[in-house]
């Protein structure tokens, strides 16, 4: 039941995050949704993941997003698309939900199961043992992403640079 509560919170704030017309509000609702997701992880017994979620997302990503929002004031351009596209988007979104939900529920059924996840030690061993190869690559990826981001940020871009 705890999960129902956290889940509802996550879903609700997620909904608001994608519908809110206020850019800033949307970002804040995202914070709530991601935090709710972290809660879900905790409820499911994946403490490590939950914490990482909280730290990386809520702590870092969202802060970045907020910064970006501040830096790119929308300047009167509408943030949402026209009603036609929104309708289509809703359709596609609902379709995704139905498809995924149907498939997942058909596979699992309503029955309850024991939560029996690996311990945090096992997860850590997994990362640094079994999955050390993707982990290595991941470090490379992070490095390069940062370098690229910095380089892009430093590069003088064209366009209306002078005007703004």
């Amino acid at each position, binding site marked *: 039941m705890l999960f129902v509560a956290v889940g509802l919170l996550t879903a609700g704030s997620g909904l608001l995050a994608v519908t809110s017309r206020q850019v800033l509000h949307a970002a804040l609702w995202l914070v709530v949704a991601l935090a709710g997701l972290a809660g879900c992880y905790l409820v499911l017994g994946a403490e490590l*993941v939950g914490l990482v979620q909280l730290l990386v997302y809520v702590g870092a990503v969202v802060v970045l997003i907020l910064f970006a929002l501040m830096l790119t004031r929308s300047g009167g351009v509408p943030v949402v698309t026209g009603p036609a596209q929104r309708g289509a988007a809703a359709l596609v979104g609902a379709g995704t939900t139905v498809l995924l939900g149907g498939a997942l529920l058909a596979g699992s059924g309503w029955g309850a199961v024991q939560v029996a996840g690996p311990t945090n030690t096992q997860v850590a061993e997994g990362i640094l043992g079994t999955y050390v190869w993707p982990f290595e690559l991941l470090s490379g990826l992070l490095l390069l992403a940062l370098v690229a981001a910095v380089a892009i940020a430093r590069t003088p871009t064209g366009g209306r640079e002078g005007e703004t």
Partner: protein
Amino acid sequence: MIRPALPYLLVAVLAGLGVYGILARRHAVLVLIGVELLLGAAGLLLVTVGQTTTATDPAAATSGQVLTLFVITIAAAEVVLALALILALFRARGHVDLHADLDPREEAAR
């Protein structure tokens, strides 16, 4: 004890919301928010699977959580790059509207 159906449902809802968010927004950062929700759905699914199925194989047992961690990290890397680009776009164009014409075909196609 937990009913896996519940998180699965949440996964479906979050994925749907993410898709909607991606499609319904034209502000680049807001599209990014949709993507985050989509990734969240993926993570939740991974964790749920990892926590509710019993696997003897350690590699399989940890894969749910480990993959979630990977996804989170990759997402972070992406966000970094994305935001840098969005800033660059803003500096170049003065907006971050993804609904603006991107295609310079008019110049090419005479």
